[in-house]
């Protein structure tokens, strides 16, 4: 569309400039400092010393023993792997729980869809910390589940539920479920109901209809949902901090600790780059698939 609704070149610069300057100066520039900081020496009081060093990257895989020898240390790789595994598990659980809901909502009458979607999103609008805290009340030794089971006489000793990988996974699923439901809903909602009727008309039972009609057409939504859940889950901090206790860390907690009590900014920066690389790899992979048409209906 041309015509007067179109802004002039200087108009574009004037309108777009301030936002770009703010994001550029206060996010792009800081992000560019992260790799620089990762190649410096740690200052024991916090911050960095402007001396070139690869110590931070050595530390990812090795530690020094008493004699100064480098020996392999699997503590940090394990945290990275745990983070990847928990993020993947969260994504799978969200898909499993979210797909039926998205499907049911999408096939409701239009008037009812609005209120149901609101119900899905309300928790997303409420404070994440509070939502995670509510699971402590349920999972801890004197929590709702253990108390209930003890009262029913099923168990005598409380089960260890809190401070486990499972607790973190529940917390993450609880946090990110709406991100899975919404894009799948949007994809299914676009499907012409006539297609479902046509599938039944052509002898598909419900399962075959789901598999051959709804699922393929909902794939862009599923892909979008998976990305929206996996990426933030990978870098999450609150769920592992509150539900994983001190022992079950994820990358986010590790990075935070380097800028807090551990005072090792270069190592924290190096771990941040590893996290960023993982996120970018996932995003690029998905963009690649989309470009090759694999996700297109």
């Amino acid at each position, binding site marked *: 569309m041309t015509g007067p609704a179109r802004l002039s070149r200087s108009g574009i610069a004037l309108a777009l400039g301030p936002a770009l300057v703010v994001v550029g100066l206060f996010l792009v520039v800081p992000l560019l400092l992260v790799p620089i900081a990762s190649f410096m020496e740690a200052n024991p009081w916090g911050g960095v010393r402007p001396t070139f060093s690869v110590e931070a990257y050595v530390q990812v895989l090795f530690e020094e023993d008493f004699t100064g020898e480098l020996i392999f240390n699997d503590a940090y790789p394990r945290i990275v792997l745990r983070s990847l595994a928990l993020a993947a598990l969260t994504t799978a659980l969200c898909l499993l729980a979210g797909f*039926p809901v998205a499907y049911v909502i999408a096939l409701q009458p239009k008037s009812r869809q609005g209120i149901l979607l*609101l119900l899905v999103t309300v928790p997303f609008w409420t404070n994440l910390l509070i939502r995670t805290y509510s699971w402590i009340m349920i999972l801890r030794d004197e929590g709702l589940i253990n108390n209930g089971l003890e009262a029913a006489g099923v168990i005598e000793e409380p089960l260890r539920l809190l401070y486990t990988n499972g607790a973190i996974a529940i917390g993450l699923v609880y946090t990110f479920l709406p991100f899975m439901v919404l894009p799948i809903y949007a994809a299914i909602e676009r499907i012409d109901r006539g297609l479902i009727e046509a599938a039944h008309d052509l002898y598909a039972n419900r399962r075959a209809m789901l598999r051959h009609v709804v699922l393929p057409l909902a794939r862009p939504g599923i892909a979008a949902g998976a990305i929206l859940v996996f990426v933030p889950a990978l870098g999450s901090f609150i769920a592992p901090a509150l539900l994983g206790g001190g022992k079950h860390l994820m990358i986010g907690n590790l990075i935070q600790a380097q800028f807090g009590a551990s005072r090792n900014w270069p190592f924290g920066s190096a771990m941040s780059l590893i996290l960023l690389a993982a996120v970018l790899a996932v995003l690029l992979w998905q963009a690649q698939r989309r470009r090759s048409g694999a996700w297109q209906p």
Partner: protein
Amino acid sequence: MSETVRMSPAQGAAANRGARRFAVGRIPGFGAATWAFFLFLYAPIALLVVFSFNGSNSATIWSHFSLDWYVKVAANSDIQRAALNSLIVAGVASTLATALATFAALAMVRGGPFRGQQLALSTLLLPLIVPEIVIAIAMVIFFTGIGLSLGLGNLIIAHTVFCIPFAYLPIRARLDSLSPVYEEAAQDLYADNWRTFWHVTFPLLAPGILAGLMLAFITSVDDFIISLMVGSAGTTTLPIYIYSLIRIGITPQINAISTLVLLISFIFVSLAWLIARRSEASP
């Protein structure tokens, strides 16, 4: 031909029963899964609210109804200071972010295709792509590096940056769905560029701007990790205060604070929903 299709009355009745049971699109089990889903979503929140009224010191064993914890919260000046900090930061940051995002969206949509548009969009949405913890440490390095320590000011800068995409997306969506024909009509009716914006574009865009503002505000109030790391001694926001309480020990006081925060969120969301519905009714 027609004989083969004709059914006996008994067969017909059976087919009718089948037809009544078969609803197109209904999948057995999906309904139950949906109920379970909403139970999973709301039971923890409901539980949290219930125990905020617990008379005893326990957040999990019910004794009797009481408002003691709310009285304690009301008397706690630390909470009030934290809440005030949260409101200041969210109020200023979301307003700034929405103003920046509104003009950016106008440039992106009404600017037509221009060179560097894709790069500009990626930059605007960058805070959504980069993990929060990475944004947090990058800003810590940056602020320390240039020696900027403005207290709440640092927090406001940080929040403005990550609120921009949250404000941008609803405004952009509204603008995309807004046909340029209204602006053309205004120009046809003797309105110059500025008056076209003021009398036509802006009022029609208002629901999107309001939605963007609310989303940015909620995102800012909700933020924890960036506030934790960028903040300094005097800049404790509500989430950080709640976090420190949880670290100390679980008491119904946390439930009471949480319930108050939830209540405000619910009011906020309902309002946003009603406004959205009204503006849908008159596009």
